[in-house]
């Protein structure tokens, strides 16, 4: 995307702020600057809408991850079994 600068914010800053706000980690001042940028920048508006959609899809999917302990236990079992097979 060509970099365009509207109100102190260029596109990469706007994208970064958009990413952060998906995790509720963008500051208010940052968000206002981003919104000003979005008014004038179409590619960034497109990016923001895609990004927000992605967040809602991830939320909807209710994905879960395995804990590190669970993974460790599986790894140990596989390793054990593999060494058993070698002997």
């Amino acid at each position: 995307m060509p970099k365009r600068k509207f109100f102190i914010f260029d596109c990469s800053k706007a994208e970064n702020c958009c990413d952060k706000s998906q995790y509720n980690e963008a500051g208010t001042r940052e968000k206002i600057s981003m919104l000003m940028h979005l008014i004038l920048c179409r590619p960034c508006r497109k990016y923001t809408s895609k990004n927000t959609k992605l967040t809602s899809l991830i939320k909807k999917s209710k994905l879960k991850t395995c804990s590190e302990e669970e993974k460790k236990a599986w790894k140990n079992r596989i390793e054990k079994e593999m060494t058993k097979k070698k002997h």
Partner: protein
Amino acid sequence: MPIHKLDPTKWVDKYSDYLFNYAIVRVNDREVANDLISETFLAGLNSKDNFEGRATERTWLISILKRKIIDHYRKTNSQKGQAEVRINYSDSENNGDWLEEQVADTFDRTAEDEMENTELGLAILECLEQINEKHAAIFKMKTIDGADTEAVCKEFNISPSNLWVIIHRARTALAECLEKNWF
């Protein structure tokens, strides 16, 4: 067609989340899902030599897990008594009402939605398999587990600005992949 190879040492890092999400929605119990995945890995190791390389590693492991889930339900069903069906409409006035009660209710729709959401989850994980393994792990920790920026940075020994670059790349790749495969 490329011939796929098995690498059991990477199974846990690469596929455990996928297998887990596949299993949990079908058995609805974290412990049972864990046991089934553990059994799947062991069965995979034992039948490693039968793998012909025509399917991907993940598809092959899922086919084993499917069988394990069926076995699990067979086992639990054989422990149960036989199902009883009682129809308590003896008078002629109410006769036939029970049929209406059998008609699918709104819960059905929820179950379908739930299934679709799981498929979406699996599609997301499939897409994440295509990006750098470390980046995928960072993205999962931040997005799915909802970990703090600080915690993720500490765990992976990266700076916050580094983290946001990785997150940005992962999100862009994921959105592109989902657009291709999901919509």
